[in-house]
């Protein structure tokens, strides 16, 4: 049970640049090493094969970047949470950076069950602003968007439209991928789409939306690498949308850049 052995905290971290090619599982291992390098003992599960008490939120597909990844860990003893972003970021590989931390309330529900929606920026290659805008408008206006997928070895057609709660082309000034110093490729300057998907009734992968948009635009093949950036994750509770660091925090004021996240994502 969360909190019964130690001191639970929730971290927000970014995954940018080359490390986007590192798998979810390997990111978890990098975090475990970072905690050990910083001599921040983790609480362990009991039993034959003790494991550190670490739980990640919804997995990010390989190759996607993120400014809003979350990780719940249970530390063996209380620490000054405001020191964690700097200490852990120093011990993590380049491109992985802890941006904010909050001490977590005991018995807080897990990220997996709490997150209700996720926002992404999509940068599609080989599609100019004009056809992209048309495709986005048509997708948004449609009442259903069937995609073909594989479940338990069977091909099934499913509607992704009910889970899409926001879809629009961004103005140039809001683009995420051409901010200098944050990504490796300065020449990327593609039109970007803001996408928000609910985790229910069905989780939607950005790749599925990209496929839909390409079909609607009549341009099926990417020219280079389509880029995806996860920008926010939200927990909606009693009609209020909360940033995950705020939602289940132990203290009323989150530390670090937690509060600012609300402005950035809103």
């Amino acid at each position, binding site marked *: 049970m969360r909190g019964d052995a130690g001191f639970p905290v929730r971290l927000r971290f970014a995954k940018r640049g*080359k490390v986007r090619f590192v*798998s979810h599982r390997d990111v978890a*291992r990098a975090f*475990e*090493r970072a905690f*050990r*390098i910083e*001599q921040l003992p983790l609480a*362990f599960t009991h039993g034959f094969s003790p494991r550190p008490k670490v739980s990640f939120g919804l997995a990010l597909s390989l190759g996607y970047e993120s400014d809003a990844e979350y990780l719940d860990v249970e530390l063996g003893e209380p620490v000054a949470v405001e020191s964690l972003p700097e200490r852990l970021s120093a011990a993590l590989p*380049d491109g992985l950076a802890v941006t904010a931390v909050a001490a977590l309330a005991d018995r807080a529900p897990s990220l997996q069950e709490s997150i209700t929606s996720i926002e992404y920026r999509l940068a599609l290659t080989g599609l100019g602003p004009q056809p992209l805008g048309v495709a986005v408008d048509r997708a948004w206006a449609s009442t259903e968007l069937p995609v073909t997928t594989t479940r338990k070895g069977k091909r099934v057609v499913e509607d992704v439209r009910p889970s899409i709660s926001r879809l629009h082309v961004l103005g140039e000034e809001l683009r995420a991928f051409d901010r200098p110093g944050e990504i490796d490729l300065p020449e990327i300057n593609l039109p970007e789409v803001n996408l928000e998907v609910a985790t229910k009734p069905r989780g939607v992968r950005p790749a599925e939306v990209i496929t839909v948009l390409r079909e609607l635009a009549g341009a099926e093949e990417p020219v280079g690498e389509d880029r995806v950036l996860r920008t926010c994750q939200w927990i909606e509770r009693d009609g209020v949308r909360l940033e995950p660091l705020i939602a289940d925090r132990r203290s009323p004021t989150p530390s670090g850049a937690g509060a600012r996240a609300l402005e950035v994502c809103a």
Partner: protein
Amino acid sequence: MSTLWPRIEPLLARVEKPARYIGMEQGSVAPEHRPDQVSWLLVYPDTYEIGLPNQGLQILYEILNERDDAVAERAYAPWVDLEAQLRGHELPLFSVDTHRAAGAFDVLGFNLSAELVYTNLLNCLDLAGVPIRSADRPAGAPLVVTGGHFTFNPEPLADFVDAFVIGDGEEVVGEISEVVGAWKRSGRGSREAVLHDLATIPGVYVPSMYEVDYDGPFIREVRPRHPDVPARVDKRTVADLADWPYPKHQLVPLVEVVHDRLNVEIFRGCTRGCRFCQAGMITRPVRERPEEQVRTMVREGLRRTGYDEVALTSLSSADFSGIDRVVADLVNSQEGTGCVSLSLPSLRVDAFTVGIASEIQKVRRTGLTFAPEAGTWRMRQVINKLITEEDLYAAVDGAYSQGWRRVKLYFLIGLPTEMDDDTLGIAQLARNVVEIGRRYTKGASCTASVGGFVPKPHTPFQWFGQNGIDELRRKVGLVRDALRKSGAQVRWHDPEATFAEGIASRGDRRVGRVIERVWRDGGTFQEWSERFDLGRWLDAMAAEGLDADWYVTRHRTEDEVLPWDHIAAGLHRDFLWQDWKAALAEHGLPDCRWTPCYDCGVCTDYALEHVVASPVAPAGGSQGTGQDLSRGHEVPVELVRARA
């Protein structure tokens, strides 16, 4: 800045495990390349997961980057999916550190650790845009240098490699950098001249400086083409490991790799004298790292890397003087970072070793591995791995009684003088092990892993004709049938792959053309069973007019010139021949670390000595103080005669 990253990056979204190609390991560097420096690309010609942990490569990477006159980066063989993408986009092999083209380096330094990666070396050269044959390389092309245990028979790769480093590389890479630096400063004049200069560095073998004369299928002589090029190239040996506490900054990869843990080399060399073991023969004498340095490297390595596992690496690690004390101290002195586990990858078979294992594996006691190597005492006398059955059973009893549930046993089949009784002895041992295990737990399991023996150069078995494919298959079948419904499982290495290894293991220069054909036919990653096809190798042998059996299954005679006779590991040929005769007579040979010198040649010729802290053998067991060197039965057959 000549990075290919912007062109490689979009390809990575289309390949498996793209993190293998991004570098960024903790401990890695992104060096600036100055024109007055010699740039090395250290290439491990297999996948990143297998190549990254290689300690030899990591040691040289650090030593070179510490030098003012050199820089080093790393590359690994791209998997077939990325290779197709690179070729499709006309992109070359690249370094993972700064994504620089391989062809832009001054030296391509390959690490060779198995016969079946030879074709990958050719593929990496081709991907680098470097002509695969040394003779075809223009003056300014990178120099292709190779190190690793497999350079002790360099001949199969003689047409492709400009220079081989024989033995320990720590010192010689600096000497090579100086020669190449001078060549570079002089405007890269004659390639012949720089190769000639390299050939005069002790421990460096430049095959193009030697002529091979043949007498029919046999070699008559290998002679140097210049008076100042040595007729015999002697290996290099680092006399004292204490001077080389490398790697100081072990690389921590972002992707999970094999041996994904802190690795600290506790000694180099082994004089157990197992006659099948090339590593033990070519790395003599034993050089232990000082105990205090081991502790420091473990402590600092764990703190820096964040690993929760450390392996103390060497051949037969339990032979390190005072290993029990070192292990107990490491286990008891963990500094507040949670559970750190310790492993000894190479365990001896006795109760003493199990005692150490129980010290280090307080939790998660799942499996223990032992390598008795042969099924009968007679056979173990032949190979000089003098483990008594009592010791094995005591070790196994200790393991199961202390909570381990799975025991894995490694065996070789196709050893010299092996009779079916010896092969069946493997099954009998495994049965007995299961029976011991069931006294403690119903779920006790035992896996017998059998591999076909490939005779290796510079060992007493270098004259022995390897078992053919059918014979190895038959022996696998014997073990398998004998273990049906026994509770023990059998795993085996593909006899066809063993045969191909045999072609390369003791091949000569003519085998190079076979390797080239296999590569041209698409035969890369040959040690991956799903990509291996013996047909390619046999077709290539036939196309070159070479008889595979002549290379693989033929017994060699005492007077035959072996393709590697001009390469010296320090072992006198007389000693090896005597030891071969002793093997056939089922005579054991003691470990010279703790008993008087029998003059194998290494220490006396190279003015070296064992660096061993304890003057006595470790306690207990037939491999410790209780070694039994008694003579076995008379030899039934004389296997080898001098050629008439």
